[in-house]
C-alpha cells in the first residue's frame, strides 16, 4: 500500500511544522487488511506531548483515505535521531535548526560545537541544553553573532 504509506508519512509533526512524521522516521509500518489499516508508529522523545496529537492526525488522514485506522505506538526498537531522513535533515537546516549529529552508541555530548546553520562556522557555544520544545537545544554563533537552535541527538 504505497499510496497509504505516503499519506501517513506526510502527516505534519505538530511541533516542527516544516517536518512530517515520515521525515522524522516515526512510521514503522502500514498494513491494510480489507478496510482496516494498521499503522505502527514509534514515539520520539518520551516526554513529547505531541504524541496524542500525532495519533489523532494520523487517524484523520487514514479516514480521509477511506480506511478504518488502528494506530499502535511501539517502543522497540527505540527511535533515535539517526532515523531522521536526509530530506528531514535538509528541512531542519533550511529552517535554521542544526540537524542532530550521528549518535553512534550513545548520547552525543552537547559540549561539542554544533556548526551554525546560518553561516556554517563551528565557532559556536551551547547556551542551554533545553529550548522551546523537548527536542531542541539553544546555541549562539560567535562568527555571525546569531542565536540558533539545534536538534538534540539521542
Amino acid at each position, binding site marked *: 500500500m504505497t499510496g497509504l504509506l505516503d499519506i501517513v508519512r506526510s502527516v505534519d509533526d505538530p511541533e516542527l511544522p516544516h517536518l512530517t512524521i515520515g521525515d522524522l522516521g516515526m512510521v514503522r509500518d502500514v498494513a491494510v487488511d480489507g478496510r482496516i489499516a494498521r499503522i505502527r508508529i514509534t514515539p520520539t*522523545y*518520551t*516526554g513529547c506531548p505531541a504524541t496524542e496529537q500525532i495519533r489523532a492526525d494520523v487517524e484523520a488522514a487514514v479516514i480521509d483515505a477511506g480506511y478504518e485506522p488502528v494506530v499502535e505506538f511501539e517502543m522497540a526498537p*527505540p*527511535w533515535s535521531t539517526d532515523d531522521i531522513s536526509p530530506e528531514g535533515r535538509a528541512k531542519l537546516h533550511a529552517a535554521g535548526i542544526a540537524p542532530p549529529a550521528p549518535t553512534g552508541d*550513545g548520547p552525543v555530548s*552537547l559540549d561539542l560545537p554544533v556548526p551554525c546553520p546560518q553561516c556554517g562556522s563551528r565557532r559556536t557555544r551551547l547556551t542551554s541544553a*533545553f529550548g522551546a520544545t*523537548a527536542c531542541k537545544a*539553544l546555541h549562539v554563533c560567535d562568527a555571525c553573532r546569531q542565536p540558533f537552535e539545534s536538534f538534540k541527538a539521542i
Partner: protein
Amino acid sequence: MAADLFTHVLRQGDRALVLSHRLAQWITHAPTLEEDVALANISLDLLGQARHLFTYAGELEGEGHDEDHFAYWRDASEFRNPLLVEQPNGDFAVTIARQVFHDQAAVLYWESMSDSGDTTIAALAVRARNETAFHLQHSAGWLIRLGDGTDESRRRAQAAVDAMWPFTSELLGADDEGALRADGLIGESIESTWQVAVADILLEAGLERPTSIEQRTGGLHGAHSEHLEPLLHEMQGLARAHPGATW
C-alpha cells in the same frame, strides 16, 4: 517478600512522577528565564518516562489500571518512590543537589536496564538514558558553578549536599530485588559506580563529600516523609474533584 517486576516498574514510575512534579513547582519561580525553561523540560521528560512506566505497570498488574490510575488515584502510602524525590525544593542549591544525586543514579540505572531481559523496559531504557544524560549534564554543571562560585553560593551548595545526602542510598537499589537481578530483568548494582561518579562531581565543585550522615529509607516500601502528602494533594486535586474530566 521479594519484589516482583510490577513493583519495580511502579517504583521507577513513582520516582519519575514525583520528581517531575517537584520540578514543575519551579515554573515561573526559577532564577532565570532559561532555567525556568530547562527545569520545565526536565520535568516534562520525567513525566513522559513516568507515563510509559505506569502504562507498563498496568499491563504487568493485569487489573485494567491505566497511567491516570497510578498517578491520581493512589494515596501516599501506596507510592513507592525513594524519599529523595519528594523532598521540598528548598533554595535553588537544594533542588540542584537533589537533581545531581538523582540524575547520576538515573543515568546509571537506565544504562544498566538497556540489557534487561524485559524487552519493553530495555527499549524505554535506551531513550531514557540518552535524555537523562542531558539532565545530568545540566544539574552537574550547576553544582560545579555553585560550589566554585562565591562564598555564599559555596556555603549554600554544601548545605544542600549535606541535606540531601541522607536520602541517597535508596536511589541505588532496593533490598528486595535480588530475584529480579538473578533473573536478568534488572541490571547490575549501580552503587559503586554512582559513588565514584558523584565523588568526582563534588571534587570538581570543591565541595565536601558527606561521610558520617545516617541514611534515611522507607519510600520504596511506602513509608514516606511528611512532604509527600501535600505534594499529592496538589497534584491529584483536580483529577479527584472532577473524575473522568478531559480537555
